[in-house]
């Protein structure tokens, strides 16, 4: 008993008091900023492993980016990843960052469904579906509930049964072998329900795009409520994105 108390005392307060405030190290690859510096655009486009970089105008799509840092290493004068982890949005196009633009990525409040804040503003129970995720996104989602990020305090929690949940969080590029289970699980969630894509692999297939082992047809059937890029997603990207989604009043 005495030992236990000593341990608890030594632990102190572990939680991050305000999850919107932490500053990640500069080296963290969050929202990129593309300068207007002239570079060999063809080489810039070609260096990206997932075709996330486009030219004329130069742009970088975070929904496709695997955050490998190759472009920033080869073209430091052109691409710089900032430590801004608030990179979630409900509009797919908002994940595209253009040259000369340095603006936060945010949700479009007008496109958040009305019932989301009304129903889920104070409590959002989620069913996670790992659909060929590589277990790094899954571990980060778990971390979202640990004593540090503690998203349970906002009512955000992962539950076992889809019937008790308000939505699904998909990680991974959705393999053919998980396509059916993904559909069954989604169907089991009572309406109204959310779909959140966590991680670049879920948003676009990421490095797995083009593999014949995938079946992403599920995603074309329903509107997506939140896109959270990352490889893997940072727990702060997840928590902040979800909070913005459920707390925005319309």
């Amino acid at each position, binding site marked *: 008993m005495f030992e236990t108390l000593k341990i608890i005392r030594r632990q102190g307060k572990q939680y991050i008091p305000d999850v919107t405030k932490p500053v990640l190290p500069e080296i963290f*690859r969050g929202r990129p900023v593309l300068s207007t510096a002239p570079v060999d655009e063809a080489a810039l486009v070609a260096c990206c492993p997932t075709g996330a970089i486009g030219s004329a105008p130069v742009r970088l799509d975070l929904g496709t980016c695997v955050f490998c840092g*190759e472009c920033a290493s080869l073209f430091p004068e052109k691409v710089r990843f900032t430590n801004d982890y608030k990179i979630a949005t409900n509009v797919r196009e908002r994940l595209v960052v253009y040259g000369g633009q340095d603006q936060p990525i945010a949700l479009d409040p007008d496109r958040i469904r009305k019932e989301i804040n009304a129903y889920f503003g104070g409590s959002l129970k989620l069913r996670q579906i*790992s659909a060929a995720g590589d277990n*790094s996104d*899954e571990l980060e989602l778990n971390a979202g509930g640990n*004593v540090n990020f503690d998203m349970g305090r906002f009512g955000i929690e*992962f539950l076992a049964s889809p019937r008790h949940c308000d939505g699904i969080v998909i990680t991974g590029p959705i393999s053919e*072998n998980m396509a059916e289970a993904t559909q069954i699980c989604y169907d089991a969630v009572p309406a109204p329900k959310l779909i959140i894509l966590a991680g670049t692999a879920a948003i676009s297939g990421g490095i797995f795009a083009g*593999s014949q082992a995938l079946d992403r047809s599920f995603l074309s059937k329903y509107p997506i409520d939140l896109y959270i890029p990352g*490889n893997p997603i940072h727990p702060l990207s997840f928590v902040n994105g979800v909070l913005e989604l459920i707390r925005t009043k319309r």
Partner: protein
Amino acid sequence: MTTTLNPLPTIPALTVKNGQSVALDAIPVLSYGAFSSEVLRLLSDPQNHCVNYYAFPDQGGLKFIAATANDGGSGAIYLLSHETPMDIQRLDSLTKSNLALHIYEREIAENFGIEFVGHPWAKPVRYAHDRADRSKTLRNYPFFKITGEEIHEVPVGPIHAGVIEPGHFRFMCNGETVLHLEIQLGYQHRGIEKLFLQKKTLIQRTVLAECIAGDTAIGHNLAFVQNMESLAGIRVSDNLQLLRTLALEIERLAMHTWGLSNLGVGIAYQLGNSVIGALRTPVINYMQWWCGNRFGKGLLRVGCNQYPFTAELKTRLLDLLDEYEAKYTEIAAEYFDLPSVQAPLEKTGTVTQEQMRLIGAVGMSARITGIPRDIRQSHPTGFYEKQRYETVTEQSGDVWARAMLRNREVQKSLAYIRLLLENVTTDGAETERVAVVLEPNQFSIALTEAWRGEVCHCAVTDASGELAHYKVKDPSVHNWLALGLAVRDNEISDFPICNKTFDLSYCGNDL
């Protein structure tokens, strides 16, 4: 003088070291009969174990390659091959004589439709999209059934209660007691090995290697970069090798910490779960300070590291180790001393050394039964060559042994990381990029001891120096069967702590 009677002439296998590449045609090509008997002869020595055995299309036919590692201190890896026409239908099974080969033959059977005559259980490994027989599906697989009045079947998954990867478990139970567990995997199949060939640039392949199993990003990517470097004839500096070893040990520390925290959930020990869980955060945050990613993605690159190891990072890590150790020692003493922790762990989910030898278990699953199988010791590369890592083992093979092994490996890693830091240079020279041109017609093999166990990657290049085949093996392919064996005659309610302590990779198996 005595003469050993040997009915077959011994064909010398090609001997290579870990991280070495050789001309593909230097690997002896044997008839199937000679290949089989030589592979089995090598494996009859308990000091040897098979680290990879697979087939791939080569020059219009199929080429089989078997790599057997000697764990007795020689560091040798014996390579043998066999060639056969593509339309081969049937081969005699080697699994009949050596059960550890079962998973390799199952994979070859799945990929190429070969029937291994006498194989006890030729079930597909992962229901790959390009499998030979697409009529076999995850849906229509006939699970092993036991019938009887008291017998009932419990299907679990593919989606599990927690936030983990998908897989299906089919229990046959007598009351609360598990008679048999069949593990059905493949849900995570992304076509990784095909993608290694489809994606042509080095950075694509590197990112792919980091995503084979994201919890083993360093372990898998290290095997990949070592293969590419040996194929390109790149010799990297001692300091770069040291830094990669450092990354591998930090990954181990982070995942062992995670595992012990997660075990706390399984036994409803909230304090252990929270306190050890909180200890993992600074470890993975350290990786984020080093390379911008909590899982070490983006750090290892072929020929270099992408981010420098600075003097500041060294100081930061030394401080972290001190703080971690103080907090860990305190909670571990409490954790493992509690009767309410010991009782559910001891003598639960036990596997024996005999079983683990039989199925060819690797890494932690082998070490919990006293088998000191550890690539860091048997086939060291990088800093492990200079400073041997002393493998630790447990004997009892139960959940307690699995927890204890991780506990002891945490302490070993802490000490080893300190040793690495005594030898590290912080000049940043390791980030210098080098040109990578692969030698044509080569075979290379690289093994790393990742936190779960040995990762083995093999690469083959064609006449133009392009990748012709890439083979990935995660330790989990061997060890899933260990989980199935562990839960027999245990209560089904003990399954979660068995699963959590084996802590195997679904995506590493499914590729």
